């Protein structure tokens, strides 16, 4: 089957998609966008988190056909058109929230979503919002630092 979707503002089309394929597989293997990660492929780790029509989802749990006609934003779409990093991305680098980085794409989308909803989150809010994203390297402390840093910078910009 054919799947057509707007990904990061650009229309992508994938042909000969097998109905058993997930949105994650189609993004990674058919659309050339492997930024969303394949850590568990069963909705437990959050490493494949993308926006699907504005709502964060695990791309591994979305059948590719369900995404037909949808607008998708992946980690590749968080920076601006000139390559300028979003404050959340910049904060992850500066705060040391990136080690192996395999959880990072999903965490960035989840944190991006949190800060869009709640510009000044308390630590408990951050923990709750990111509870669906596993990280094995950092122990999460520097991820909290990064989200706090991004929130303060976004706050300055308002």
């Amino acid at each position, binding site marked *: 089957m054919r799947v057509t979707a707007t990904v990061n503002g650009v229309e992508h089309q994938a042909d*000969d998609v*097998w109905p058993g394929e997930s949105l994650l597989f189609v993004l990674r293997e058919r659309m050339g966008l*492997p930024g969303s990660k394949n850590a568990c492929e069963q909705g437990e780790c959050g490493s494949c988190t993308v926006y699907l029509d504005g709502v964060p989802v695990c791309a591994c749990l979305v059948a590719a056909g369900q995404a037909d006609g949808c607008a998708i934003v992946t980690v590749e779409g968080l920076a601006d058109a000139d390559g300028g990093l979003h404050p959340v*991305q910049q904060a992850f680098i500066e705060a040391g929230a990136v080690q192996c980085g395999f959880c990072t794409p999903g965490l960035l989308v989840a944190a991006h979503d949190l800060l869009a909803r709640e510009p000044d989150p308390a630590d408990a809010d951050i923990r709750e919002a990111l509870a669906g994203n596993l990280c094995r390297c950092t122990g*999460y*402390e*520097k991820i909290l630092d990064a989200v706090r840093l991004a929130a303060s910078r976004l706050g300055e910009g308002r």
Partner: protein
Amino acid sequence: MSTPAPVRPGRKPGVDPADAGIADVGIAGENGKIGASPARPDGRLKVTGEFAYGSDLWMDDMIWGVTLRSPHPHARITSIGIGEALATAGVYAVLTADDVPGQNVCGLEHPDQPVLAADLVRYIGEPVALVAANHPEVARLAASKIVVGYEPLPPVTDAEAALDPAAPQLHPAGNLLRHLKIRKGDQAPSADVVIKGSYQIGMQDQAFLGPEAGLAVPDGTGGVDLYVSTQALHVDQQQVCAALGLPADRVRLTLAGVGGAFGGREDLSMHVHACLLALYTGKPVKMVYSREESFFGHVHRHPALIRYEHGADNDGTLKYVKAAIYLDGGAYASSTSAVVGNAGTMGAGPYVVPNVHIDCYGVYTNNPPCGAMRGFGSVQAAFGYEAQMDKLAAALGLDPVEFRCKNAMEQGSAGPTGQIIDSPAPVAELLRRVEQMPLPAAQPSPTSNGTDLRLVPGGVGNTTHGEGIARGVGYAVGYKNVGFSEGFDDYSTARVRLEVVAGQPVVTVHTAAAEVGQGLVTIEQQIARTELGVSQVVVVPKDTGVGSAGSTSASRQTYVTGGAVKQACEQVRDRLFVLVRQRLEQPAAQFRLADGQVWPASADAGPLGPIGGFLGDTVIEQTVQWRHRPTEPVDPETGQGSAHVQYAFAAHRAVVDVDTELGLIKVIALDCAQDVGRALHPQAVVGQIQGGSAQGLGLAVMEEIQVRDGRIRNPSFTDYLIPTILDVPPMRIDVLEYPDPHAPYGVRGVGEPPTISSGPAIVAAIRAATGLDLDRIPVKPEHITGTP
């Protein structure tokens, strides 16, 4: 459903530094040197999704490989029928043991594991056959059509029972992999107070997030290039070459992006398999494990049974320790011998104990193979000896920290192998420091309104508003060797080049040391900037085009590869100074490098000119092999000997709230003090300590691969739970820097110590809250409630 069609674009293998994710971002001045915390050079690629992990690689004409694995823990293979699988549309190859051209065996210390099982399978999940097809689902479908005849044999699934002479013998030399004996001092000691305890440690998974993955590309002339997520390119290469029957120059490995490792990538996974399929089909072959397959595709932390007996005098002085440690190595040796070495030689803990009698056994069973995981033997022992320390302190009426400090190792102490600790060992100070850190706020009062459920055990499960909760505080300290031990020739290789590019001096660093997330690429840049005064440092992709760096394990790379990079830079600098002396006609002058300039060695004088000016068109390149001080094997009868090059220490204090009715716990604080010798990148050091502490938390209260009759019952992140951001508390980290005079810059390995003491501190806190013994980890709710 229709048959899946071939798939298309992803990302080409990392032949370009940008693809490999380790391109330079030049950082000028002090901010890029050691002791600062510059941004990691792969950070931008990792936050934009452009960093190429093994599973992201792609090539034109690429096909997919999958593995068929044994469903039996122990069985004879009577037949393998591949006809139907091979006839499946889209399938390019179906391979079995008969198709392995070289030696059908691999392994780290004792090559004993077939690349593909030939006549016998020894664990559930052992690879039996391979399929390559144009779509991963086609390959999986075809693999399910392979018909393997098995004749089941009685499995051995208990480590102690495996040593019974009547047990089925799983390998030609029997079921005993290693028995380490440590005998020191009086072997029939007595003491005023004697404490005995028996402890069990569950099987932990590394649970790195990036599954095993790689891409093998045939070179058209019988050789192969393998891009793979691994910890040790040359250790892999040696094994791949033996299995393929090819010399090293025909099997070239390049590091693909690594999504965490923690020991789980020391052994081969899909390496040989992908190469076999690529060479057979003539096509690039990609293999990516699913999470379920990953649980079968790498070794785990050894589950252990440990029996301790400690004796102390009434004044609180430790007199003796006796221990029997059984480590279940599973079906194949992997690194079990070295894990036995660690669990045994560090089995008395970081304490001065005059009389030691330790037996440590590593055994074969038909359970999943076990090998390296962060902490490597020390983790298991520490759970036992730290529980014993608390019991002894209680029996003696002493404070647990006081008792530990009274018996703590220090520089100059002799360990159980007789080795003298010849660099700082601030065991007591680490304990004092965590003891003196501020305690978290009191637990929520059950009568207060508006309890934030996220702060109590059970969380938003709404199981308590604060009633029935007891708080406990626990302490633990642990230690571990850094680097490879017992006489291993532990070295690393670095190639450093200095040249002028576009008018600016540029340093290129080439090593084969695997970057697995810890930040070694940043450290390599910092060392080069420090030694050569140049801001632009390019760390080129890690590959086998340069000599071995050894394994990214044993907390050793900053020490050993850092030492190699430092020495290569020093040699480059010496050669540059020869040029400077010739140019200035000052044959005896001494210089230094900083800020891109050559300076007289004396502090006050101004610069002599830019490095590039002296260098001109000259390219200076030096390659060095660097070794740490040699270690020695221990005596086979007494375990005596200077087996380790360096020890690293950490202490934790845990504060835990326990819902005593439901057995739910919440770790409220997990604070750590660790001596790192010298923090080359302080931010990364803290990140290692926090991440390592969280893995210890996981083992203490959450994580266990549940194995019954040799079968893993929970091979998924649904059923194998690792800590989330809700499970890990704030962690206050106190980094001490007492330089080791024997190590480059005084560094001490950082990665593993925090994983050793965090779990025992948490369990001590649960004991303090509940009064229970808790002799098994992970601690589960039923252990607290006593419900069967």
